[in-house]
Every structure is written in structure tokens, then in C-alpha cells.
């Protein structure tokens, strides 16, 4: 479970996040939805502890990310905005390296890496250096290394950005699978239709504030439209 309470963050004179609170629960997919520049990435970065909020707090399964960063981070699997890989390491080595950094022993990390390779259909590329991988293949490596320590919460920042149809579908399948396993899945997107298909709960933010929150049905009611996309636009245009 990821609890976010009244987060605020500014960079110089720019107020990136003004006031954001929500809770993402186990066994549910929570979508953080908002237009570009709404403060989604900044919010997520405060959740996984790379940015320190000016105000407010974040708890991962009850552990405060700023008071106990190492413990809280080990409960999180993150697919951040930056998808950088090490060109000279193989896909498997990426997972093993991150597994080691999470303190997994050799047997555990090798078993987990193999399980993820099977699950993500990476058998043919697992032992190749990632240099020259396609976007979809790179995404699989990123997912693998984010999941290798079997976290109970997973945070994905715009996971389908720049992916082709087949890879997008693979990511969506993965999100559903993780939810079914009981994980807390929190992901951000600026695509309403994507959020609509995947999410149990939706948090819409704009200009650094939460403007609507609830299940897709509740959002439709709040946005006064049967279509989520229209509801989303209505909510964005409504005065705060």
C-alpha cells in the first residue's frame, strides 16, 4: 500500500506539486492521470524517494520513505521515467545486478531472474548484451530489473510511452498479472483510454493538485459524461 499525504514540491519559482494526497491499495491498479506537466513524475519521484517533498509524507506499507529510505525502497519496484540500461551488460546481468543491490543471495536472484525471463518471454535475448535492443526489449529488461526483488508495490512512470502495440499489450498484461498477485500497482499516464482499461482506481491531477479521485464509474459521474475521456476533459476544464 502506498499512502501519499499532502505532498508539496517546488523548484525555484515553479510549483510542480501543490497538494497531492491519495492511497494506492494492494490488489488494485491505481492510475495517476494528468496532462503533461501536471506533476505526475514529480509526485512519483517523491514516492520513490529521489525527491524530498517540501511538505507532506509518503508511506510504503506503513514505512516512511524519508525516515527509513532503505527499508521503504526495498518494498518498492520502480520503472522510472529514465529507461537507461548498461549497453555492455546482458539482460540477465541487469536483473542480477539489481537483485544483488537489493541484497538477494545468489540462488534467490538467479531463480528470480530466470522466472522473470520466462514470464516476460525473454529467453532468446536474456544472455545478449542490451546494446541494440528494440524499445520493447529494453522495456522488458527494465521491468525485469524492477521486479527482481519481488516487491509488494510497483510504481511505473508512463510505462507504455514510446512502445509499439505488441509491447504495450505486454506491459498491460504484466500490470494485470501483478494486480492479480496482490501487488499495489501505481502507474502514471496521460492517456485516458489506457487508464480506463487497466485501473481500478483513478487519481486525476492537474497543475499539481488532485482534481478528482475514485473508480472509473465515480470519475464518470464526477465528470458528468458516460465516456471517461470526456469526463476527464470536463474535469480538467472545471474551475478548481
Amino acid at each position, binding site marked *: 500500500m502506498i499512502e501519499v499525504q499532502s505532498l508539496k514540491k517546488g*523548484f525555484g519559482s515553479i510549483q510542480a506539486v501543490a497538494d497531492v494526497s491519495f492511497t494506492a491499495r494492494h490488489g488494485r491498479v491505481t492510475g495517476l492521470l494528468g496532462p503533461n506537466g501536471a506533476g505526475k513524475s514529480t509526485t512519483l*519521484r517523491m514516492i*520513490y*524517494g*529521489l*525527491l*524530498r517533498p517540501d511538505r507532506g509524507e509518503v508511506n510504503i506499507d506503513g514505512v516512511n520513505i524519508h525516515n527509513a*529510505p*532503505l*527499508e521503504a*525502497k*526495498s518494498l*518498492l519496484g*520502480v520503472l*522510472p*521515467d*529514465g*529507461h*537507461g*540500461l*548498461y*549497453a*555492455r*551488460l546482458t539482460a540477465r546481468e541487469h536483473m542480477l*545486478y*539489481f537483485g*544483488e*543491490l*537489493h*541484497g538477494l543471495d545468489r540462488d534467490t536472484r538467479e531463480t528470480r531472474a530466470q522466472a522473470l525471463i520466462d514470464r516476460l518471454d525473454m529467453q532468446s535475448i536474456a544472455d545478449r*548484451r542490451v546494446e541494440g535492443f528494440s524499445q520493447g526489449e529494453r522495456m522488458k529488461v*527494465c521491468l525485469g*530489473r*524492477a521486479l527482481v526483488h519481488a516487491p509488494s508495490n510497483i510504481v511505473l512512470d508512463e510505462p507504455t510511452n514510446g512502445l509499439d502495440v505488441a509491447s504495450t499489450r505486454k506491459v498491460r498484461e504484466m500490470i494485470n498479472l501483478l494486480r492479480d498477485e496482490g501487488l499495489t500497482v501505481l502507474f502514471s499516464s496521460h492517456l485516458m483510454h489506457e487508464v480506463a482499461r487497466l485501473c481500478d482506481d483513478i487519481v486525476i491531477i492537474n497543475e499539481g493538485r488532485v482534481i478528482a479521485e475514485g473508480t472509473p464509474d465515480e470519475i464518470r459521474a464526477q465528470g458528468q459524461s458516460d465516456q471517461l475521456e470526456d469526463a476527464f476533459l470536463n474535469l480538467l476544464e472545471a474551475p478548481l
Partner: protein
Amino acid sequence: MNRIFIVARKEFRDGIRDRRALLSAFFFPLSAPLFIYFLLNAVINMAQVDDSLEVPIFGANAAPGLVNHLVERGIKLSHRQPEPLSAIKSAVVNQTLDYALIIPADFESQMASYQPPDLLLVFDSSRNDVGAQVKRLRDTLAAYNQELVSLRLIARGVSPKITVGARPQPIDVASDQKRTANLMNFIPLYVLMAAFVAGLGIAIDGTAGERERKSIEPLLINPVPQTHFIFGKWLASGSFALLGMLGTLVLCIVAMYSLPIEQIGLSFNIGFEQALALLIICLPVPYIAAGMQLLLGLFAKSFKDAQSYIGILIIFPMIPVIIRQFMPFLTETWMASVPIFSQSVLMMDILAGSPYTELRLFLSIVTGFIASAGLCLLAGKLLASERMIQS
């Protein structure tokens, strides 16, 4: 602690797989001693007096006495038909002749009337390779002149000593080894430069490289304190630099031993103990270099940026050698506590055969490692700052 080694192992593996970076990292350290070997070898060959000195001489028939004098002193002559001076000059300019001695046709008659004849020696002073031969020829001619004067004085009942006012007698206190050290200041220079070059690729890849390829964010999300990442990268980059530096040191010593420097009156006496002291002294340098490079690397957002910032660091090991070249000074104990400077100065001392104290060795090592740890802690602070993930 354990995480430090995990990070170091990954960076090391990554570095070894980067063939191009590896080549550039070790090309300089390993080629410098070779270059030095061939250069010094050439210098020694040039400086040696050439037994087969053969002087092109024009108009030799005019001065049989002089010719005998030269031949008696082992100078071979290559007799040439007289030519105009301008033709001989241009032959020397074109290097068809290395140099030439021209005896005027009226040599004997001028001598008979006590008019000093001109002996023309045509040479090119910008040519280092014939410098030693020309000098020998001039010395021989000067000796001939001196002998001639002495004979004339004796013939008039005057002691030739009267022509000597006072005789300068140089007493050179520099030992052979000290004079050799002057020639060898390049060893600390190259060894320290190797320490700054060999680990550079890994240091940049692990800092600016992580930022450029956007792998820094996923990395920092791991439950590992930022300073552990830095110390891991420091260990990997420093160890690479250490390998390069040791390679250079060993090759430099081997090169000096295989050069025939005793032929130019110099000697190289580095025993096992001195070699060990050299090694201990330079041990912290790769790690100081790695600390500096990581810190600067974090300020850069791209590999290229970092290369231009970090390139400047290479002047650090050069400064002490240059200062000593132009403003010679004696080593004092406080100098041993200035990192980089201390290593350079102490290495020069040992190579010169000057005594070194354990205190200085100790100070140099301790301050060196303190400096590098301090740099790492600073880099760790920087890595923890929010600017790292903002592009």
C-alpha cells in the same frame, strides 16, 4: 560495505568489456615507457663520441702539419677537391655534407709570416645529431692552435705557462645518479599521468555516463546509500588506474635498466627497496585521481562534457615536475602532506638516490587517502542531491 563491492564489480566488468575505452586507457601508460626508451637511446647514441669520425676536408694539401695533427688524434679525413665556399655551404644546408673543414690555399705562407690563417668550419648548429662530432673537431683544432702557440713561445725562450692567467677547475658534486635523475624526471611525470588516464573512462561512465543514458534514476532507487555507490565506482575506477600506473612504473624501470646510460657517464641504481618505496608512494594517486574524476564527472550531464572538464585534471601531476625543472628546491617535510605534489616530489627524490624518511612516506600516504576519501564523500553528497535526476 558489501554493496560497495557489488557496485565495484559491476563497474569493473562494464569497463573491461568496453574495448575502445580500454585501449585508450592503457595505450598511453604502456606506450610512454617505450617512447622514452627509444628517445633516450637515440640521445645516448648522439652524445657518444663517434670513433668513426670522418671529416670532409677541402684544400688539405695546403696544411700538411695540421693534417698530421688531426690524423694523429684519430680523426679520419675525407679529402675533397676545392670548391667555392657558397657551394660547400649549400651542401651543408642540404645535408649532403654533415659539416666541412676548409683550409685556405695560402695556409703555409700566412703561417710563415705570422698571419693567422682562417680555418673555416662549416656546420649547422641546429642539427643535434652531428653536434658531438663538430665539438670534437673544434676541440682538436683548438688544441692544435694551443700547441702551435706554445712551440712559438718556447722557440723564443718564453714559458708557455705565461699565456695562462688562471685555470678554472670545475668540481661537480652531483653524483652520477643525481645527474641521471635530472634526465629521469619524466618517470614520476608519466607514472602519475598514467594514474590520471587509465581509470578515466570508468569514472566518467559511472557518473556523467549514468546521467547521459538515464540509468542513474533506476540505480538510485535501489536501497543503497549514495556514498556506497560512489565508493564502489571509486574502487573500480581507482583499481583500473592503479593497473595502468603500475604498468607504467614497472616498464619505466625496466626501460631505464636496459638503456646503456653508463656510456654517457650516468647511472641508474634503483634496487628492490627503492622500487618498493616508489610503489608505496604512488599507491594513493590512482584513488585520488578517481575521486577527483568522479566528483567532476557528476557535475557533467554528458560524457563529452565530462571529458572536457576532467581533461584539465591532468595538469596536477605535471605541476611539481615543471616547478622543479625551472625552480629547483629541496624537499621539506611539509611537502609530503600535499597530495599529488608529495608523490611527485618523493618519487623524484628516490630516483635521485636522495635519502627519504619513513615519516614523509607515511604522511604522503595518509594525506593521499584522506584526500581521496574526502573527494568521495563530497561526490556522495552530490549524488544524493536532487539535481542528479533533473536533466
